[in-house]
């Protein structure tokens, strides 16, 4: 028998395969937008608003550069970006791609300058003079909510994109013996993929297409957005996402820059390029995470939660971002705040507030990082009040395995899992007893030890039934995958989303290998190109393994049936007499390999009998899970810190993650996802913050001021996997892309609070910086001088 040699080790679902794509990444051969060179390409630099809120009186362009500068007045027929939500009461914003009349955030695009190089384009941009009348800027979402505040969008009458309220019998909790109220907040952050945004636009005359090559997570959605804004039919637009150096949500947006470049390429006829620099990234492009909570937890003395009452405000920035809209974050808070807990009463009011800041986008974990922070900190406060260890309070309230599948108080449908077991394992692995003994003994260097826990659930791959309710420009339906056997027996897969670092070129190949037995080395995954792939809403919401994986499995099964039919012909037996096994169609008397079947189908059709079915070895298949309300993966995080209360330094001594992501297609890739998320969670917990001054100026414009965790700040976490299959998906997989970033801020802050509680200190704002710690320690000392000796 010929055909490709079979690898010795299994490569299908569950194999710890090194990632195929890493070969080119590690050798520096990835091809990112900025690596692409095109004949005649020119660079674009934007003139951006230096003010957070101002009326544009005039834009003055010197005559000698007039032909290289474009403003809103030039953009005939270009529509503003509109990301409307269908939730009742939502007020839409119109985001002009180049500012018209007013600027509403620092960094808003005002003019576009084109030149042979970026440096020259910046020279031109410097010479464009803006005459602006400064207006009062809104940089504080709570004040922006108040009556009489300046207005971001005058015709609204207030600054609230959307207000929501749910009340599920909260009054029944009011008589609880324990009532703990806290004001908790997470600072505004900038997502920081290693590669920023960037786009090239050019006109392909042969295909009669405007081609936009852009570092994005959702090429098909960008195509729809470009079509709406530029007024061109979708068929005349091609969007390509080449290698993409990280997304995390930052690239799940239609950019005004993309629209501008598309228009410019059509106007000038030669390729144009814009590569975002770090200052643009930090000060002008979309932000994330800024939440404010007024939360009250009602509980019994044994720690049982009687009810949770919360007012949550999210700073959505100046415009509603396409496609997720300005309210996804806040409105989601209301539905997911209950987390993994089962309790009887709940009220949550939310506001999505417009301010003079960059639009907010859902960052890895989306609203979950914020709600986990709020609820898990509040639960530790309940534990302290009840005099119980935090794990006891959590165990008391977690959804139990025998309740699965479980509909929680906000009707979230938990598919499967054993949450108390994850908690138990985390507490045991971190050695809670020993840590607490050490904490009692005290450290010779005067630092204080703290143990922190946090637990969350992550709804992933939620589909039509969830998103149709939001009514935003994008609702995911069936996910499609294309699969084609090549004449030599290899396999090409096509998916409409974009792999921007998650390893889909490997994991989707593993899924196909599981079914067809084609070696992973001979499976190629084509993605990120509207011309070459089926439609997809893209890579977001931890949905790819469930959705694209499910679609690939469906397509591979369809191919397996066709291969079996042809193989049966070749084996001269009936299709019902053969089975598909390890890359072969096996009959009673012998077998043929996929490669042999492919060779006959494509190269020697004369060997096929009359009447063979003509559909061939290429399919496109669609997939939805049995239920599309989402998979629920979850994890318990446990962390030990040492805090120096005098200088506020926090060292992470140990970190344990017990994770249940359903059936793992590639445990090594899953570990990578968890560890990458953990790094980002540590950033949220301790380092990352975009501060603004009273005039709405973003104050961190380089990575010297916007601090990201580095190798020294990220602990070598110990990961333990549970694998409870989802009953609703192919192979029982669940989405796990975001969880790593959800729990760390709460776990780390709870650990810091555990360390500092004897000093009368409780940290409730992320990031927990040295300055915030020292401030709190000094304040506590000033308030109760006697404590110092007690401590």
């Amino acid at each position, binding site marked *: 028998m010929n055909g490709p040699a079979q690898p010795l080790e299994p490569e299908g679902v569950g194999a710890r395969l090194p990632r195929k794509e890493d070969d080119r990444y590690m050798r520096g051969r990835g091809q990112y937008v900025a690596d692409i060179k095109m004949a005649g390409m020119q660079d674009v630099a934007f003139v951006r608003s230096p003010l957070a809120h101002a009326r544009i009186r005039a834009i003055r362009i010197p005559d000698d550069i007039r032909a290289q500068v474009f403003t809103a007045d030039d953009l005939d027929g270009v529509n503003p970006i509109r990301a409307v939500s269908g939730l009742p009461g939502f007020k839409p914003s119109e985001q002009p791609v180049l500012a018209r009349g007013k600027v509403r955030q620092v960094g808003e695009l005002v003019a576009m300058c084109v030149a042979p*190089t*970026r*440096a020259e384009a*910046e*020279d031109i941009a*410097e010479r464009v003079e803006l005459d602006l009348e400064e207006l009062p800027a809104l940089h504080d979402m709570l004040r922006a909510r108040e009556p009489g505040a300046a207005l971001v969008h005058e015709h609204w009458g207030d600054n609230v994109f959307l207000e929501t309220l749910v009340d599920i019998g909260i009054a029944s909790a009011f008589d609880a013996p324990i009532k703990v109220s806290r004001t908790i907040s997470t600072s505004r952050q900038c997502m920081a993929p290693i590669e920023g945004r960037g786009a090239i636009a050019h006109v392909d005359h042969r295909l009669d297409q405007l081609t936009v090559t852009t570092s994005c997570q959702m090429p098909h959605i960008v195509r729809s957005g470009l079509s709406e804004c530029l007024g061109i039919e979708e068929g005349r637009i091609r969007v390509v996402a080449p290698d993409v150096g990280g997304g995390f949500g930052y690239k799940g947006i239609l950019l005004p820059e993309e629209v501008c470049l598309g228009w410019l390429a059509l106007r000038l006829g030669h390729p144009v390029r814009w590569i975002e*620099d*770090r*200052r643009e990234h930090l000060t002008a492009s979309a932000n994330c995470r800024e939440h404010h909570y007024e939360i009250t937890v009602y509980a019994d003395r044994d720690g049982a939660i009687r009810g949770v009452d919360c007012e949550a405000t999210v700073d959505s920035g100046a415009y509603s971002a396409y496609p997720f809209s300005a309210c996804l974050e806040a409105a989601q808070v209301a539905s997911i705040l209950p987390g993994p807990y089962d309790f009887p009463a709940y009220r949550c009011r939310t506001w999505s507030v417009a301010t003079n800041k960059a639009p907010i986008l859902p960052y890895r974990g989306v609203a979950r990082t914020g709600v986990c922070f709020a609820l898990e900190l509040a639960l530790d406060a309940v534990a302290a009040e009840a005099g119980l260890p935090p794990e006891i309070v959590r165990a008391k309230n977690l959804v139990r395995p025998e309740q699965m599948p479980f509909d929680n108080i906000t009707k979230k449908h938990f598919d499967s899992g054993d949450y108390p077991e994850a908690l138990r394992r985390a507490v045991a692995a971190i050695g809670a007893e020993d840590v607490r003994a050490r904490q009692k003994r005290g450290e*010779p*260097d*005067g630092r204080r030890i703290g143990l922190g826990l946090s637990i969350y659930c992550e709804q992933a791959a939620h589909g039509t039934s969830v998103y149709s309710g939001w009514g935003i420009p994008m609702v995911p339906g069936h996910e499609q995958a294309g699969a084609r056997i090549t004449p030599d027996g290899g396999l090409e897969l096509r998916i409409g989303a974009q792999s921007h670092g998650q390893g889909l070129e490997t994991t989707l190949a593993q899924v196909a290998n599981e079914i067809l037995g084609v070696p992973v080395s001979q499976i190629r995954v084509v993605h990120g190109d509207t011309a070459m792939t089926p439609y997809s809403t893209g890579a977001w919401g931890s949905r790819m393994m469930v959705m694209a994986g499910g679609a690939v499995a469906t397509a591979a099964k369809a191919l397996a049936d066709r291969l079996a039919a042809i193989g049966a012909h070749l084996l001269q037996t009936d299709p019902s007499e053969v089975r598909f096994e390890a890359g072969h169609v096996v009959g009673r008397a012998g077998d043929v390999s996929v490669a042999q079947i492919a060779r006959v189908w494509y190269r020697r059709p004369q060997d096929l009998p009359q009447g063979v079915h003509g559909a061939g070895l290429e399919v496109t298949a669609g997939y939805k899970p049995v239920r599309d309300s989402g998979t629920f993966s979850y994890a318990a995080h446990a962390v030990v810190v040492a805090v120096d*209360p*005098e*200088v*506020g*330094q926090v060292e992470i001594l140990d970190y344990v993650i017990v994770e249940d992501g359903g059936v793992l297609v590639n445990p090594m890739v899953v570990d990578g996802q968890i560890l990458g998320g953990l790094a980002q969670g540590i950033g949220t917990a301790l*380092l990352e913050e975009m501060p603004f001054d009273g005039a709405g100026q973003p104050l961190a414009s*380089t990575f*010297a001021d916007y*601090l990201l*965790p*580095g190798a*020294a*700040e990220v602990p070598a976490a110990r990961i333990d996997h549970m694998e409870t299959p989802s009953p609703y998906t192919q192979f029982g997989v669940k989405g796990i892309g975001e969880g790593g970033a959800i729990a760390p801020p709460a776990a780390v802050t709870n650990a810091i609070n555990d360390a500092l509680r004897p000093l009368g200190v409780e940290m409730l704002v992320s990031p927990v*910086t*040295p*300055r915030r710690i*020292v*401030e709190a320690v*000094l304040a506590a000392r000033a308030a109760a001088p006697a404590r110092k000796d007690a401590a």
Partner: protein
Amino acid sequence: MKAPRFHLVRPRDLAEALDRLAEPGGLVKVLAGGQSLGPMLNLRLVRPDLLVDVSGLPELRRVGREDDALVVGACVTHADFEDGRAPDVGSGMLARVASGIAYRAVRNRGTIGGSLAHADPAADWLSTLSAFGAEVEIASRSGTRRTPIGAFVTGALATTLAPGELVVAVRIPQVSAQARLGFVKHARKIGEFAHAIGAALVDPERGVARAVAGALDAAPLVIEDARELFDRSAGFDRTEAGRRLAAAGLADTVDRHLHVEALGRALAEAFDAPPGLRRAA
């Protein structure tokens, strides 16, 4: 964030470099490791007409001992100290400071002369070399001069360097075998600039007990006789330290607390205080 247009020259020797620096017309800047100047160029915070790249000048890469001092060429890099290619004054003192500056990639290029000439108050060399009582050697076409760091740095990012002048070397006085360096750098994360620096050099044999509070918004605060703040039996006088820092303009109480801590811990280390007196608090 692309630099505006400028001319770049790479002189072959010191004399040529000094000639180019003295050229009239326009702004002439020295380029050493480029680790501070590079970002400033890209952010268009500085717009030189001419950059004179001195990083290849052999005269600026020399290290030797002279008159009881270690004389270090201005273009010796942080990594040269870290890796031991450049000699140290006391056992590993300079290597320790160097290895805490920035990240390895920055240390590979960043120079001791560039760091002093840039005079960022948060720079590690500025505070530690002040504690050592080091001097800066400066050359121009009209000759050379020598000035103590305290006189050289006049404020944040400000020195007495005149146009046409180049830092050629740093003279670091030798210390005795018993000398102890206390050095504490508070930074938000490894490799970042300091928010507070405490540095102290105690060398009884040579009658030195000097302390420095650095990473203020101004030149470092040098306390020539650190025994006014630290006593081996009574420990650190944090009230007095706080008073001096307040007098030096440090109004914010949290900042002051951090600086007092850094100073107290550096002093405890330099004076080899018993464990009970190690912590400033």
